[in-house]
């Protein structure tokens, strides 16, 4: 991973908690910022099944449950873990610096099944 040059700020560490993910924006797309223990993760906010916003969802361990139909994804890998979701979420590499949560926009990728 290259240094901070490519990383852009999404939010402050204090904007996110375990229960309450934060909705950030990247070039007009909504992203979801999650905290699991001391680590932070970023996925696309829009569920791959329908219109559910994952930031509004229910965090259960390292899974996010969509508020719409309770499909689930692994927050770390983006992979679907419960029906009706069958397609993985896009995820980004995260860096935390000076209490800022940052991602490398170019690192966005979808895990292969």
């Amino acid at each position, binding site marked *: 991973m290259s240094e901070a040059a490519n990383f852009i700020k999404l939010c402050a560490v204090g904007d996110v908690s375990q*229960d309450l993910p934060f909705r950030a924006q990247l070039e007009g797309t909504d992203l979801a910022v999650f905290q699991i223990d001391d680590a932070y993760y970023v996925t696309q906010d829009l569920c791959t*099944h*329908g219109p559910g916003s994952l930031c*509004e*969802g*229910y965090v259960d361990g390292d899974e996010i*449950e969509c*508020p*719409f*139909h*309770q499909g689930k994804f692994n927050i770390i890998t983006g992979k679907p873990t419960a*029906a*009706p979701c*069958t397609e993985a979420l896009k995820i980004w590499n995260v860096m935390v610096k000076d209490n800022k949560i940052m991602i490398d926009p170019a690192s966005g990728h979808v895990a292969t099944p």
Partner: protein
Amino acid sequence: MSQPVSTLPLCEARVAALVAGVVVIGAGQAGGRAVETLRAQGFSGAITLIGDEPDPPYERPSLSKEMLHVTDQETIAWVQKPEFYAANKIDFRPGTRVAAINRGQHSVTLEGGDEIKYGALIIATGARVRHLNLPGASLQNSHYIRTLADSRALRQRLVAGSRVVVIGAGFIGLEAAAAAVTRGCAVSVIEIGSQPLGRVVPAQVGAYYEALHASHGVKFYFNTSLARFHQRDETVIVETGTGDMIPAETVIVGIGVIPNAELAGNAGLPVERGIIVDEYGCTADKFIFAVGDVAYHFNPLFDRHILLESWQNAQNQAITIAKNLTSLAGAVPYAELPWFWSDQYDVNLQMFGLAEPEADCIIRGNPKTKSWILFQLKSNRMICAIGMNAARDLRPARDLITMGAVLKSEELADISVPMAEILRREKRERALVG
């Protein structure tokens, strides 16, 4: 979740499935989830999926929601992409009806006369709409919403300025009413009961939906029966029992569904509205299972049989039963708390559990706003939770209900105490005690 238990009858069905294959009747949501799960579990036997609709399995909820709001774009939630079935060696037969189940021969007869053998049979035939039995009403002048074809036909008719009458203020009727009024139609809803959603939710929630629809211009006729339809050229005039004449270009009927249980009944399997099955989805015949809208199933959480017409039940019951059919680890009973949702205008309703008329109702938040929750308690234990635009705060209620937690109504009503916090505390206390 309960521990898997080994049940001998299921072992026999498992072996038979491997040897002679699984046949699934009905390619709806439950049928689709069943075959998908069999393959996901590594089941290597033959799978035949037989459905009388022309399309591969899809989810129905959008048919009365997103699909009706526009005409230039289709929102179809396929259970799996159409190419999935062939790619996974599933013999999918669309446009094909099963005419009979021959239990003695372990086979089904198709409408054309062909016979297909099964080792294990899963009946996922769902339900069909109940038709109006009324002078003047016909399939030409009444729209029902169950299939993609129904929804496609109806949405073409919801043109701005036209008049729409909705018969029945249940969830599907109200969702259609919301779509029609949003598209600029003049909408009247005729309901035999005294308020919307009367059979499934407490009065406070019904009243909320009445006000919501009224604020968008929907006109309600409650406690109103129907006398007949009169056809005047392109217009239907709906005559009510009290003599009102309500003209409409389009009539939408949503008065409930009838489980497609006749195949099972004709094969001598016990039916009580739906096909009677145990918590493993098994009928009286150990090689035949039923799932989804057609299954009158035993739910251990309620200690009785229930029939659900819901998306969650179709999906999760099918998944559980298909897993049991393939898993060597033993069988897990299907014991889920019912969950349901509805989208009308900008309000998303979600409901956990089944409402009961005599339970205590506690309101969290303000029903005059777009976001609030109603809890139902019995002997201080939560049995049902209904949230309007409150998905996250509502979600802990699911666990609080299944845990049987004893709760204080003042705390539940206090929006400054997050529901997640109440759940965490209850879990902690249990961990200490346990």
